[in-house]
């Protein structure tokens, strides 16, 4: 038998998942930066109406055209995106917080607490998102409060389930048992041990949730719940544009929606990459 000589295996995979992740993260970063910087550079005055520049198709002066009041749609779109992102971050964070607290509580306290939380998860999943959001928006009296609370209360369920499962698993790990052996309270264990353990899961959950949250904000706004009609939000741009769009002013719909799509897509890709990388690939053996 000849002596085996170790040869470095050639890489047959297309591209490593980590490079994909880095690209996705860079895309998201570049988009965010572009939106924030553009919004900062833009002249607020173009938000006002200009009687002489009504319903202008896209051109060098108005990149995305203007609406029926002569307002520059590019400016309004960028402002709308900034608003969408802000609302998205706030609501997704709130959702993650609700999910983390309820997930840990359910798994750690067990018994009837677990039963009630699990039941709450099941029944909340049963109400279609949009119906649930309209219900909550109505319950808190509409406005931006309706948007934020409505979205926060409707996106926590699946992440709470995941965190609950994680904690159920961790509950029997040595460090938790040891900590309990030292007489630590459940609250201390949750705060000092479990929170740190579920944080990566919560972060991935945040990124995965973000696209949904942004899309639902836009949908809810489009249906007329939430922001006042003057606010430049993507949903409102499209809602207001509807009568003009159906008479051929296509640009009023195309660009705002397309920009929202790009932002959501970038985040969705990032979330997907994160998910692929964090769920360790199976290995034959």
């Amino acid at each position, binding site marked *: 038998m000849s002596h085996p000589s170790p040869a470095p295996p050639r890489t047959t995979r297309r591209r490593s998942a980590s490079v994909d992740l880095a690209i996705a993260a860079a895309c998201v970063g570049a988009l965010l930066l572009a939106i924030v910087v553009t919004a900062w550079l833009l002249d607020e005055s173009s938000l006002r109406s200009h009687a002489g520049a009504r319903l202008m198709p896209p051109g060098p002066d108005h990149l995305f055209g203007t609406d029926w009041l002569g307002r520059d749609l590019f400016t309004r779109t960028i402002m709308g995106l900034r608003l969408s992102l802000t609302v998205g971050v706030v609501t997704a964070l709130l959702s993650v917080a609700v999910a983390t607290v309820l997930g840990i509580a359910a798994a750690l306290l067990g018994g009837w607490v677990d039963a009630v939380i699990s039941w709450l998860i099941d029944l909340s*999943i049963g109400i*279609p998102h949009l*119906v*649930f959001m309209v*219900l909550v928006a*109505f319950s808190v009296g509409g406005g931006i409060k309706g948007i934020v609370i409505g979205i926060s209360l409707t996106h926590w369920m699946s992440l709470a389930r995941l965190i609950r499962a994680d904690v159920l698993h961790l509950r029997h790990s040595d460090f938790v048992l040891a900590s309990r052996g030292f007489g630590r309270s459940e609250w201390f264990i949750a705060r000092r041990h479990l929170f740190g353990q579920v944080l990566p899961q919560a972060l991935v959950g945040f990124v995965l949730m973000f696209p949904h949250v942004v899309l639902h904000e836009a949908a809810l706004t489009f249906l*007329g719940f939430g922001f006042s009609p003057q606010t430049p939000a993507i949903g409102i741009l499209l809602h207001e544009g509807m009568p003009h769009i*159906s008479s051929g002013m296509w640009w009023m719909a195309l660009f705002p*929606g397309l920009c929202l799509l790009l932002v959501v897509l970038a985040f969705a890709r990032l979330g997907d990459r994160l998910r692929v990388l964090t769920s360790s690939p199976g290995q034959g053996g």
Partner: protein
Amino acid sequence: MSGALDSRSVTEAPGRVPAAVPTRGPRRGRGLARVICVRVARLVGLLFGVSLLAFTLVYHSPVDPIAAYIGAEASPTDEQLAQLREYWGLDRSFAEQYLAWLGAVLGGDLGVSRLYQAPVLDVIADRFMMSLALMGVARLVSGVLGYALGVIAAMNRHRLLDRLICWYSYTLASTPTFWLAILLLTLFAVVLGWFPVGLAGPVGVPGSEVTMAERFHHFVLPAATLSALGVATIAMHTRERMLDVLDSDYVAFARARGEHGRRLFRNHGLRNSIVPALALQFAYFSELFGGSILAEQVFSYPGLGSTLVDAGLGGDVPMLLGIVLLSSTFVFVGNLIADILTVLIDPRTRDSL
């Protein structure tokens, strides 16, 4: 290390009859009935929870139902207001109001819509049928197309076709439903003029005189919107499932026996992915419902969508509660069907019933 080199294990006595003799026959029916009973009981419990949650939410709304009902123009006297409060039972406690409402609901009475001036049940039954037609067609189209695309993508993993399908699905999953609807409306109804701009029938023609062709004409674009979005979800889920199947031990064994390509799919892929794909059709009723609301809104399709928006914006509490109950029932029944399908078709669970 040498510990792994164990001596032979003896787990099977010679000539032993296999333990798992299938228990087919009359027992199976009863087992299935039991499973369905348990699930239905759970569904009723969840619906009860939904009703409590929804009622709690609307009860705490700062929107005054009377003000919303009367509108800004009218200026009723205090006496009239008090009468209205009493008439609607708004002067009673939360528990009393909830139980009164629940009792009425259980008796089949969802109350009277303040906006539509008609029994809630009549309004939403009518509207729901319209929505159901839309969702049914969309589900069917997206189910068939989505499954096919998902399978094609998985069988061509990482090749161009797979990438294209993935990109289509990712992009559509990130597309605002109402925006896609607006685009289709702009392109096909406004620019090309192939389809009317809105409503389930031509304006000004009584419902009974609307022909099937006209109905279809007004139905196509909203259905296409919902289908295009549904295809994306179904295709991605099917692809994941098919990849699991293709990476499975039994497919590895089938490959080692010389099966490949279409034959491999026919023998093992279809068998192991069709039930989850079918179940998926029912499990995603929640998304479908949300998409339907938005598409209906854009195309002025007279389904439940506009009713929900009107009820939410106009403070029509009985209507809002009715829609919440109806849509949750719809989702829960979808899940129930998905569960039963999964249990029923898989021989491993079927025989244990």
